[in-house]
């Protein structure tokens, strides 16, 4: 019986490197895998949610090289060499929550919680972008994140709380 050959990349797979929440990983992917499906189905990071899968709801928002994107509209193979931060990667190593996570809890900025990981990632990028100075601008620039439970006033309050405390840059 022939000995097992060294594993070969399947022909329809593309190998990329991706840093996920600070850890570099080498991944062999089918080209049509979205970043969202990679995170949830292959890496088990189910904190990032799939709402519409069409770029419309923002539930799948992650930070890609510090910028917020809809992971459902990004093919994973497009991100070779990039760094992704998901909701799982926001807390410090000792478990201390990111100030935006703390503010969401303190302001009760969710009901069912389905939109929350996307809201929090989006809000962190919003502060980095530094374009929002008041509640109206926060609402406008968070319009890519829909909350079916209608927790909007508390979401805006949570973001204002972090803004008022001087914020904390995204990791």
């Amino acid at each position, binding site marked *: 019986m022939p000995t097992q050959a060294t594993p070969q990349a399947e022909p*329809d797979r*593309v190998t990329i490197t991706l840093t996920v929440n600070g850890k570099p990983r080498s991944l062999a992917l*089918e*080209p*049509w895998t*979205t970043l969202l499906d990679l995170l949830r189905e292959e890496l088990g990071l189910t904190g990032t949610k799939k709402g519409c*899968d*069409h*770029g*419309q709801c*923002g539930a799948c*928002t992650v930070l*890609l090289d510090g*910028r*917020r*994107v*809809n992971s*459902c*509209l*990004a*093919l994973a*193979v*497009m991100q*070779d060499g990039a760094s992704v931060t998901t909701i799982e990667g926001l807390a410090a190593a000792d478990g201390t929550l990111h100030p935006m996570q703390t503010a969401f809890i303190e302001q009760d900025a969710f009901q069912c919680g389905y939109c929350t990981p996307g809201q929090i990632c*989006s809000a962190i*990028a*919003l502060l980095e*972008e530094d374009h929002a100075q008041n509640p109206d601008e926060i609402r*406008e*620039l968070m*319009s*890519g*994140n829909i909350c079916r439970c209608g927790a909007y006033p508390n979401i805006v309050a949570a973001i204002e709380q972090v803004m008022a405390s001087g914020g904390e840059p995204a990791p």
Partner: protein
Amino acid sequence: MTDIRYLAPRTLDEAVGAFAAARGAARILAGGTDLLVQMRAGAVRPGLIVDIKRIAEMTSIEETADGGFRIGAAVSGAVLGEHPRFGQVWPGVLEAVNLIGSTQVQGRASPGGNLCNASPAGDSVPAMIAADAVVTVQGPDGRRQMPVAAVPAGPGRTNLAPGEILVSFTLPPRPRGAGDAYLRMIPRTEMDIAVVGCGVNLTLRDGTCTAARVGLGAVAPTVLLVGEAGKALVGSRLDAAAIEAAAAACRAACRPIDDKRGTIAYRTRIAGVLLKRTVGIAADRAGRA
């Protein structure tokens, strides 16, 4: 979405070679904010995806020696918005590009994708037409240039030849006293498709309009350059009669559809209203006293 090959070439020649060799089975991928949605809906099933974002020329913004701009077709709206000078020189083009989707969509969506997707309602297109932007395309037979208005052929179709890729937009240098603006009418303020979109670019000298171009979106199968509207403004001091004549030219150019977003009568009427408002903003930016 299975059996798709993916290529991310580093040079335009490689991209054109692979795209042309696939003979229509391939799709260009810029930000993917239209393409991925269409693939997911089963509307397109490419055998090969050619990602153009690794090609330097397609993702760079350059201010040319004469004061114009060259924007790579795959530059994202977010990156264009961060350019230190572009938004000062072309605020109307930038506001049009930045109306595309949410901030998350902006991180990816490109003006090249907006134009090549060939939606009659693409927001950046009327502003680019008003700006008199020219695109450079490259295909198996080399490079050529064409005005932005010549790119769309109808909803979802372009006049690019098989194997041709849109490389960049070139915007001309700005004379003193020039201003541009873009406005769209949508039922909500965010995340929807234009019922009508209007781009205006004009130049004022001592209060008299010396040049004007008007682009109109979502009122015909392709985005329109409304030459008569520009003509009605040139030579005037942007008085009410001249602006009404330009608005009438816009209404006359409309060949819209009836749909859930607006009826033919509504869209036609709005085209005139938007023209007036957009001219007002462009004139203020041009330094109207």
